[in-house]
Structures are given as structure tokens and as C-alpha cells.
């Protein structure tokens, strides 16, 4: 039956997440100003607190389901800006889980594995990557050369799942993935990148110079299986975007209320001020995007793999975060520009979600191909 009410279990877990997000917000502010420092694996407060992500995934009865609840937990966490428990899971782990052999999975199951796809000349067009592995017949190793940029968890991960071209001994070519461990000779992690926002987010470039990789580390994720990891993560990015968006909305509502500008939902457009009307429209954009995230997550729970819905959620969340964080500053005026309060960070952080893990344009390509019945050759 159609319903949008949170269950008592949902509420309980989200309350716990919110309390942690309040603490996380203080750290988020610190790491925003100290971008070269990596947040610890676990903050001191976290030792006594449950990891809400784990609770969401583990709860058996009484919740709206693990996928839905997980997305709402992420939203709440991003409301704060920094998780007290750092995730040990990277998108490289998802590739490992999906395509690796049992022996490979066993070897790296406790590693955090980042995913390395983007290059200076290939971002939204990953088929254009130049990183190449050639096979050395004498040693039975692969020799990897190339550069990867904008890599999340670059410094904190134990290994990188590197998307690469290969030239096999028989001369055949293609795209594949290699797991490259941190201490491999010829593998260098660059310094933290200087970003507009999400400055606590570990992001570096990676360099591979004649990096020798044992055949056992060849994970054999092809183009399709590597890209499919984003099906899970896209609605999640939508949820994260909405966490930042709601932080901006909450802050703005509070400040407007302090100046006696209350938002009423009762009357029509001619009954409210321009400021109230614009706030209400930003809030509507938030609700709209949130429901597309929940829709996608609900489909996942029904075992209907969402494809177009995952892209809808990502595109809607990313767009809403841009519009809302920009709009809130406009509504509050010059006082909103100050770094004395977190709105400045929400504005900068909120801009990433329509860019990473498939820019809004890529999501629209996916959606358009789906509704038009086009292949990626019909619509480029």
C-alpha cells in the first residue's frame, strides 16, 4: 500500500543518526578548514556509538527496508557533513564483490578499495581512458602505465581498483580492471586536491609508472560490470546531496523565523511574501528529489534493478542541491556569505553532487536513451 510514513524503527535509527550528525558537523567545519588532514577512521565519540549504516542494513523487522533506510541514514549523515564512523567500503570493493574469483575476494575482503576510472582526458567518457597494461611474458606480470585523477579514498584506501586498457600476449585488446595495492612499486598517490568544497573528502590523483602487477590481481571487470557499480551508488549520491540541501533549508528557515518570516503552507501564492514563496519552492524541489531517491531504493528492495530510476534520483538530487544551496544564500542576503556559519560550506559542498559519479548530463543521457529506446550509438 502506498505510504510515506516513517516507521518507529526508522525514526529511532534516524534520530540516532541525527545526533551523530550534530557532532559530525563540528568536525566537518574543522576539516573544511584543514583540507590536508585526513579525518580519523573513527572519531573518539564514535567508540561508544553504533554505526547507523550498519543498524540500517541489519535491522530485520519494523523498518521501511534496508535500502531505503540506508539512503535516509546517508542523507542525515550528510546533513552533518562528516560521518563519525568512516566507511571501510569503496566502490572498488563493489567491483571485487561482483566480478572477482572466490580466491581474490578472500584475499582482499578486509581491504578498502577505491575505484580509479577518471583520467585527465577521460571523465564522462570512460571508454577513452589511456592507462594501459601490457603483459610481460618473462615474469607473467602486467605492466601498468597511466594517470588517474579525482580519486576518492585515494589516501585512505588499501588498494585501488584501476580501470585500464590491456594488450594481452595474443595481441587482443580491451578494457579491464586491476587491483593495485598501496605499496606496489611505481604506484604514487598525489597530494590532496584543492577543492571548492567537500574538503574533508580524501581526493587525490594516482600515478602508475611501470607498475608491475601479478596476474592474480587481474580482477577482470569489463566496461559494463565496472560501470554497473554506479547503479547502486547513484541514488545514494542523490540522498547525500539532499542531506546538504536540507542542512541549508533548515538553517535558512531558522534564520528567517528569527526575523519573523514564517513559512505558511495554507494560503496561495498571493498570500505570501516573495521570500516565503521562494523558500517554499526550494523546499518543494527538496521533496521532489527525495521521493525519486526513495522510489529508486524501493525498487531495489523489490528486486527490480532500477536503471533509469537510479539516474533520475541522482540527477534530481544533484540539481536540487545546487538550486537550494544557491537559493538559500540569496534569500538570506549578505550576512549569509560569512564563514562564521555553515551555510558557506553547504553552498560549496552542495555543488559536487551533480558532478561526481556521473554528471547530471550523463544521467540525462541514460534517462533519454531509456525513454527513447535509443542505444548509446543513437544518442551520444
Amino acid at each position, binding site marked *: 500500500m502506498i505510504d510515506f510514513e516513517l516507521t518507529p524503527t526508522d525514526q529511532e535509527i534516524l534520530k540516532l543518526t541525527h545526533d551523530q550528525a550534530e557532532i559530525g558537523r563540528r568536525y566537518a567545519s574543522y576539516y573544511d578548514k584543514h583540507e590536508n588532514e585526513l579525518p580519523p577512521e573513527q572519531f573518539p565519540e564514535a567508540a561508544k556509538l553504533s554505526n547507523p549504516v550498519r543498524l540500517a542494513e541489519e535491522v530485520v523487522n519494523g523498518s521501511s527496508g534496508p535500502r531505503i533506510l540506508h539512503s535516509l541514514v546517508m542523507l542525515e549523515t550528510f546533513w552533518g557533513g562528516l560521518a563519525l564512523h568512516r566507511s571501510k567500503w569503496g566502490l572498488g570493493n563493489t567491483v571485487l564483490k561482483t566480478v572477482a574469483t572466490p580466491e581474490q575476494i578472500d584475499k582482499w575482503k578486509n581491504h578498502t578499495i577505491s575505484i580509479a576510472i577518471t583520467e585527465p582526458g577521460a571523465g564522462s567518457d570512460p571508454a577513452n581512458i589511456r592507462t594501459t597494461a601490457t603483459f610481460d611474458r618473462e615474469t607473467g606480470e602486467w605492466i601498468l602505465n597511466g594517470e588517474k585523477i579525482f580519486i576518492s579514498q585515494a589516501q585512505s584506501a588499501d588498494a585501488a581498483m584501476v580501470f585500464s586498457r590491456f594488450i594481452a600476449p595474443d595481441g587482443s585488446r580491451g578494457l579491464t580492471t586491476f587491483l593495485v595495492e598501496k605499496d606496489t612499486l611505481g604506484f604514487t598517490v598525489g597530494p590532496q586536491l584543492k577543492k571548492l568544497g567537500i574538503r574533508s573528502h580524501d581526493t587525490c590523483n594516482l600515478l602508475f609508472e611501470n607498475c608491475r602487477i601479478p596476474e592474480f590481481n587481474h580482477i577482470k571487470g569489463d566496461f559494463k560490470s565496472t560501470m554497473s557499480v554506479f547503479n547502486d551508488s547513484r541514488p545514494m549520491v542523490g540522498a547525500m546531496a539532499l542531506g546538504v540541501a536540507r542542512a541549508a533549508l533548515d538553517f535558512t528557515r531558522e534564520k528567517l523565523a528569527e526575523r519573523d518570516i514564517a513559512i505558511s503552507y*495554507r494560503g496561495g501564492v498571493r498570500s505570501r511574501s516573495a521570500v516565503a514563496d521562494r523558500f517554499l519552492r526550494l523546499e518543494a524541489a527538496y521533496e521532489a528529489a527525495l521521493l525519486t531517491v526513495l522510489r529508486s531504493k524501493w525498487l531495489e528492495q523489490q528486486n527490480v534493478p532500477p536503471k533509469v530510476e537510479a539516474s*533520475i534520483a541522482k540527477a534530481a538530487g544533484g540539481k536540487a542541491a545546487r538550486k537550494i544551496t544557491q537559493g538559500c544564500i540569496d534569500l538570506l542576503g549578505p550576512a549569509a556569505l560569512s564563514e562564521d556559519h555553515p551555510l558557506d560550506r553547504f553552498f560549496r559542498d552542495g555543488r559536487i553532487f551533480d558532478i561526481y559519479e556521473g554528471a547530471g548530463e550523463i544521467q540525462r543521457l541514460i534517462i533519454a536513451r531509456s525513454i*527513447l529506446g535509443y542505444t548509446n550509438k*543513437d544518442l551520444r
Partner: protein
Amino acid sequence: MISFELTDEQKLAQSMVQELAASLRPAARGADDREEIPSSILDEIWSTGIVQSQADADASSATLNALLFEELAVADAAFAIAVAAPTGFVSAIATQGSPAQKNNLLPLFATDKYRCAGVAIMEPDFAFDVSAVRTAAVKTRDGYRLSGIKGPIPLAGQCSHFLVVAQCDGALEAFVVDRELKGVSIGGKRPNIGLRALETAAVSFENVELPAGARLGESTGCDVQRIVDSGRTALAAIMTGISRAVMEFVIPYTKERVVHGAALAQKQVIAFRLADMRIETDAMRWMTWKAASILEKDGDATRQAQLAYTYAAEQAMWIADEGVQMLGGHGYLRDNPVEMWYRDARSVSVFEGAVGV
């Protein structure tokens, strides 16, 4: 518990109404041109049982109504409003009426033939707002004296009753007004920009003497905001339907039309707008469902209904606008339906308080 699951009954009703809507679709243009809905079509949409089911608390479902209004609006927004208007009236009586009001009024709608009654909130005034109506009811010895002008009211000429929202003792109240009462006069049909088939008219109430029992809920009064919330939810459902109609029409068109050697739809500037149409239509629908599901549980739906309505109004107008643009000159001709949806989208999006789920 968060769920998008339709019940089996909802799925069945939805597919039946989908079929009906497909059969009615070809009649939409003619109805717009002739500025009336044929009585045979009114009877067909009546046969969906949406209005009749409002009288039965167990059978009535705001969520189901929202689903069905979307489907009907894919065929034609005026057809959808022709059902949503009496639904608004009957559901207000069923949920907020006194026992006597329910006994007197609800059986009138248990018919096989189309029957109309309207919620009269809108007023023909450029400064009109649902929260600031000018029509007023003054207490008299025996009841109330009602004065004001309401409109546009869908199918006003066919309405047996109006539920008139008026200022009374500093608050908004609703009054059941029989069209036969002295002082009630129904103006001539006044076609609007869109929804031309709806035969809307203004209705004036000139010192209409009402018995005390005319006040909705009688001695306890009613919650007018709930009527507004229900109306906004219904409009959001109808705007979702119009948006879908536009999207489903322009997808094959833009695939077929070749410009500079490639199908229009193969150009990103068009394809991305189509993608946005899909994103927004989905979002509008889920927002409508959320508001409707709260109404169905008798919860406070004011915020959700406002957000669903405001968002749908913005997006439906954008979608209809882009629909016209994608067809270029053809879109501007009345040979194609997009110009009608363009007019309808503008009309529905400001049509507050004429309908209900």
C-alpha cells in the same frame, strides 16, 4: 512504512481507467472546440464510480482517486476535472458533513447518470487567494445570509449544489447551497484560456438566506483548509497527467522528425529536456501520492499538498511549454494537441479549490 506498492484493487482500477482514458482521448479536441463535454462522455467517466465511492468511508480512497485522476488527465484535463469537481464536493460532505447533511446529500450521488456539484472557493478577482475569500456569510436569526461571487466553477450549469467557502465571524466556513435557492444566479458559460470543455461560469449569491443546517458540519463547523488541501492534491494529480500526455506525445514525434540530418530526439538539447520531463513527471506523481496518502489517513496534509501543488504547477507549465517548442510551428497549430495542453496546463495550475480527492 515507506512503500510505493499499489494494492491489487488499485492496479485493477488503474488499468480500467487507463483503458477508458485511451478510448476518450480522441474526443478531447472536439470537446475543446465545441466548449462542452458530451453527456455520453460524462456518463462514461461517471461509470468509473469515483464520485459514488466517496460516500462510503471504507471504499473511498484519496490515493486511488489521485491515481485515477492522473490517468483521466492523460486523456484530457477537462474530463478529469469533470469527475474531480463532484468528488471534491461529495468527499467534503462525507468527511466533514453532519449526519443530516450526509443523509440528505450523499444518496443524491448514488446514480448511474452523471451528476455535478461544485466546491466554490475561487472568486473572479485578480487579488483572489484561497486564504482571503471575499464572499461573506452573516449570521441571522434562523441561519446565515450569504453574499458574493464565485467562479470559475466547472460545469456550473449542471451543478445541483455548491459548497461555498465564505468568511463568517472572522474565519472561513463552508456552506451547502442548493442552486434553487432565491438569490443564486448562475452566469452564462465563459470559456477560459484552457479547459474550454468545462463549461465554467461564475455564480453569484445575492443575500441568499441559508438555514442554520447549511453550514458544513453544522454546529461544529468544518476545516476549510482540508478542502483546500484535497483540492491541491487533485490538481497535482491532474497536472501529472497532462505532463505525461505531453511527454508521451513528443517522444515519438521527436524521434520521427529529422532536422539537419538527424532525428530531433538525437540532439542532446532535445533529449535532455525529454529526460527532464520524465524526472519531473515522476517527482510530481510521488509528491501527489504522498499528499493523498496523508489525506487518506486523516493526517495533516497541508504542507505536502502545498508542495505537491506548487511543484506540479511549475513543472507542468514547463513541460507543456517545451512540448509546444519541440513541435515548432506545428506545435502552434490547433491540428496538434500540444497547444491545448499548453493552455490546459496554465489553467489547471491556477485552478485552486475547484476539485478534490
